[in-house]
């Protein structure tokens, strides 16, 4: 359906209240093909499929053939996987002993890719014998896979466990030609830092066996592909980011649910879903939680002329999911409501329309979700419905920001001592560490390991001598500081660091895990256990944070507009004083919490304002700084891939250490996650975006869509909207247009 037809159909719909505030046609682009010579069998297989290589695929293949590493960041459904499958097929059929290793962040993604690769392998007759190998691999199959599989698909946690058994994998490692990191945008923040350390260990072992594999990093579109690939693999890669695939005309509709205050967001999403399916458009709708997904699906099913609307979630059994995926591909299923589980990786074919209920936290995710609509050159539709949240609603007022997405920055944190010590211990347990392998920055960690009796020096190098296996004593998640386990019915659902545990897993907290809701009953920080129960609830909770921050050192300073910006090490004393329950976007009740304050070091970035304009009166100053702080925090995910809750802040009319009015933001995770460093570098853009967001909001003195923060520990008091706009203008350089 064309955009104008859709809009006029909407206009005729009696339920329509004029919610469409902006509708942008995104022009199609014709496919750009490239002819490169392929091995006959691979060429024949692609011919039989009717597949021609796009320019970006050819670019990646040629760079790999030239011996380079590649980072490929073209959009969802542009055929990134073929770009590394082709070299794998060619190299492994040229050399019958050659092998490849594919790493996936999740087992489900590895399984999905195994099927596709196996099919391709059969079509080409390359005898890759691809196989997954992870915690789910049956014991009796393991030895056979180690002996003969030529492409092994696994995940970082599994690889961490298998590296010390490298002699059992000697064949794979000695003949390794290619290491593929697919869906690599999952490897960000502290967890990504872990993967980087793990890859360094992998490289060391592979080198020991005499192989020199090339690396492919495949990720959703991001702003800094080369830096990200280097941070992850420690190597330079050729970046392939320009999409050459066919793209039909796409319309992006910005839908303001506030235009119909009588109807909830869930209700409006369901109405839209049934409307679109009734128009014959196969539609996917993304919701934040499974409960919400089910509510939207059941309402839409009731309203729609078709029965073929279902909800999809990660918790379904594998065969149930497979059926739903197949029904989507075949078009039997006309509408599906999913959590982010269907965002990427899983093959469901291209649909006609995607509805995004709420901003998924990053433009990267938003475009992955949007990318589910569109198949080749057919037209597609994306409808974005924001919540009443500053960043969500910001895109209604600045749709171009959404449309012109160039990717957030993906960053890995600086290596912490804990990382170094843990990975050093594991490396020493894999092969003796020669003195030259212990870098200058590892000296302190190595000393600590020797002192605690875990490392012993011998003429062969430093060897590990712990009582327990190094890889069990140092699980990946604990090296990332994730020492608190979320447990339900005796099963660990996930692990988190102590800061996040206090923030999200306090007694009474509602936690989302793979789209399901859990209510936390108890949090034992000494034992590192949060106990939760599975419960369907229709409210969410938000911890209320207050903090005091001491600056320990300033590592860099810069000017941004009329403000001074600095970054450095800070010591945070953080308390969660209570929590709010939120229902339908409205705060329902506030409950006190009695958790001890938490003191930790992390990275911070702060702006000081020495010349406060006269328009801001002294009594208003705190409200102005406080409001600006909230606005800056809510815009942070625009610049660096993070959850707004990962960045926290304080503001003071007179900071005792800077001696000036100060806004300080910090990484809400022990030792930092690299966020403050990016915000420091991007401060002017951050301030400009925050300024634009607040000044374009139509409210008078601050609303949930601009200044009010659900996480504020001081009940959003005081706040001054005009003051905040002036403060932000001070930090945003005058030359930037975004502020006006």
């Amino acid at each position, binding site marked *: 359906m064309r955009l104008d037809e859709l809009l006029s159909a909407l206009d005729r719909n009696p339920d329509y209240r004029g919610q469409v505030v902006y509708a942008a046609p995104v022009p199609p682009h014709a496919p750009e093909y490239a002819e490169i010579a392929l091995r006959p069998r691979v060429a024949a297989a692609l011919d039989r499929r009717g597949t021609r290589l796009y320019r970006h695929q050819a670019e990646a293949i040629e760079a790999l053939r030239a011996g380079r590493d590649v980072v490929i960041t073209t959009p969802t459904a542009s055929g990134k996987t073929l770009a590394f499958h082709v070299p794998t097929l060619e190299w492994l059929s040229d050399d019958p002993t050659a092998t490849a290793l594919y790493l996936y962040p999740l087992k489900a993604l590895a399984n999905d890719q195994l099927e596709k690769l196996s099919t391709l392998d059969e079509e080409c007759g390359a005898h890759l014998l691809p196989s997954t190998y992870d915690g789910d691999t049956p014991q009796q199959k393991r030895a056979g896979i180690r002996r003969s599989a030529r492409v092994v698909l696994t995940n970082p946690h599994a690889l961490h466990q298998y590296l*010390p*058994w*490298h*002699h059992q994998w*000697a064949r794979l490692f000695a003949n390794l030609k290619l290491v593929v990191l697919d869906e690599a945008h999952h490897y960000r923040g502290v967890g990504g830092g872990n993967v980087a350390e793990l890859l360094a260990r992998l490289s060391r072992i592979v080198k*020991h066996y005499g192989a020199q594999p090339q690396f492919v990093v495949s990720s959703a579109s991001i702003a800094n592909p080369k830096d990200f690939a280097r941070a992850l693999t420690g190597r330079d890669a050729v970046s392939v980011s320009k999409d050459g695939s066919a793209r039909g005309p796409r319309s992006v509709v910005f839908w303001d649910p506030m235009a119909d205050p009588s109807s909830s967001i869930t209700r409006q999403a369901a109405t839209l879903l049934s409307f679109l399916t009734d128009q014959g458009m196969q539609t996917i709708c993304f919701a934040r939680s499974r409960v919400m997904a089910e509510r939207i699906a059941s309402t839409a099913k009731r309203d729609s002329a078709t029965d073929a609307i279902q909800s999809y979630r990660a918790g379904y059994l594998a065969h149930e999911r497979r059926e739903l995926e197949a029904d989507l591909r075949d078009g039997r299923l006309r509408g599906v409501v999913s959590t982010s589980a269907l965002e990427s990786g899983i093959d469901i074919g291209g649909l006609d329309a995607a509805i995004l209920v709420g901003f998924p936290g990053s433009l990267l995710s938003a475009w992955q979700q949007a990318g589910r609509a569109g198949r080749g050159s057919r037209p597609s539709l994306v409808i974005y419905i924001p919540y009443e949240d500053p960043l969500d609603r910001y895109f209604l007022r600045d749709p171009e920001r959404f449309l012109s997405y160039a990717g957030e920055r993906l960053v890995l944190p600086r290596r*912490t*001592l*804990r990382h170094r*010590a843990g990975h050093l*211990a594991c490396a020493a*347990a*894999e*092969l*003796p560490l020669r003195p030259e392998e212990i870098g200058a920055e590892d000296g*302190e*960690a190595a000393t*600590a*390991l020797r*002192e*605690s*009796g*875990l490392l*012993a020096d*011998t*003429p*062969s190098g430093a*060897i590990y*001598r*712990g*009582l*327990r*296996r*190094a890889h069990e*004593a*140092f699980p990946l998640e604990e090296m990332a500081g994730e020492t608190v386990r979320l447990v339900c019915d005796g099963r660990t659902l996930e692990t988190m660091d102590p800061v996040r545990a206090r923030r999200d897993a306090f007694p009474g907290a509602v936690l989302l895990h793979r789209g399901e809701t859990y209510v936390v009953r108890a949090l034992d920080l000494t034992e590192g256990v949060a106990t939760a129960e599975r419960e369907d609830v229709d409210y969410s909770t938000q911890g209320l944070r207050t903090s005091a921050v001491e600056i320990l050192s300033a590592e860099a300073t810069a000017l941004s507009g009329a403000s001074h910006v600095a970054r450095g090490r800070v010591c945070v004393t953080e308390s969660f004083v209570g929590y709010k329950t939120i229902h339908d976007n409205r705060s329902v009740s506030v409950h006190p919490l009695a958790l001890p304050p938490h003191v930790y*070091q992390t990275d911070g970035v702060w702006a000081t304002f020495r010349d406060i304009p006269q328009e801001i009166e002294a009594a208003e100053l705190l409200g102005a700084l406080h409001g600006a702080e909230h606005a800056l925090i809510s815009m942070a995910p625009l610049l660096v891939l993070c959850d707004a809750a990962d960045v926290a802040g304080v503001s003071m009319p007179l900071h005792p250490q800077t001696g000036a009015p100060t806004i300080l933001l910090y990484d809400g995770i*022990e*030792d930092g996650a690299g966020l403050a460093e990016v915000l420091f570098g991007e401060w002017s853009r951050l301030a400009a975006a925050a300024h634009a967001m607040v000044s374009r909001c139509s409210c008078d003195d601050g609303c949930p869509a601009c200044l009010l923060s659900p996480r504020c520990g001081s009940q959003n008091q005081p706040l001054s909207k005009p003051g905040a706009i002036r403060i932000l203008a001070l930090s945003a350089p005058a030359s930037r247009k975004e502020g006006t």
Partner: protein
Amino acid sequence: MRNDRLAGWLAGRAAPQEPSQEAKNLLGVPDKASEEVVLSGVQEPGSPDTLTFESETPFDLRFPAVDLLQASVVRMLHLLYGIGACRSEQLRRQGYETLADLTTHPQWGEGARALLGTWGSTWDAEAVFRTLRTWLPASDPLLLAALGLVPRERILFFDLETLGLSNAPIFLIATARLTDRALLVRQDLATSLAGERSLLTRFGRDLEKATALVSYNGKAFDWTLLRERSAYYSQSLSPVEIHADLLYHVRRRFAGLLPDVHLGTIEKNVLGVRRANDLPSSLVPSFYSMYLETGSPAPLRPILDHNRQDIESLALLLRALLGEATDAA
């Protein structure tokens, strides 16, 4: 993270605990190096970080007569690929009693000739084992009886002591060999962690002179660890075709009759071995750690005694089990 917090984080993952005072008293291990304890080991040339202890115990071990063994093996028609219990019975009724008879059979003749061909006229131990291992359970008494095909000086008993539960450094390897009338035990001890590599090299040389290995739980533990630790030092161990892990046989013979199948339990109930003031296995890592820390050899004495008794018991156990295997053959 500050360094003291890192130390705290590491502490929980650390090396073996200090042994209790009680354990030290029991074994008469002094706290300090005040009391002179002298170990009478021999330093091998070229391995400054190891000491070797040798002992010889009178020991008489008889294997079932080879002709008896051969007579029972050739009657096992199901050692031929494609022949199961039913078909064996059928062939027997037709007068094919042995594999030798089968060599003239129109259908199975070729297979039987090929199989006997691999064994050779003198019955090559490794080839026979390969066949038996394929068709018999690992705990079958015949597999023990078949050790009689191996020249007795090429049978190697072995047992390890390590610094932890798994993947931990090995600091003591005991091996034992048979002569006509005695058991020769050799214990190679690492006097520092640097000695592990020499122990492995030396064990690798022992393997070259061995056709069969005898161990207790060695397939799952000791051999796996030896391979892993050798790979750690970029060395390789040549595989040995025949490995009799006596744990399998003990399980088959005594499961249900004894509370557990720990070597200690078997010693007490089957072999009649009494240990006086024995160091419990669980304390071995911490005693060795204590030695590393203090430099005093006092804690090594109980470790060496414990380990020597282990390997002697291993030989006694083989003799006990062979008694039954002889009956089976």
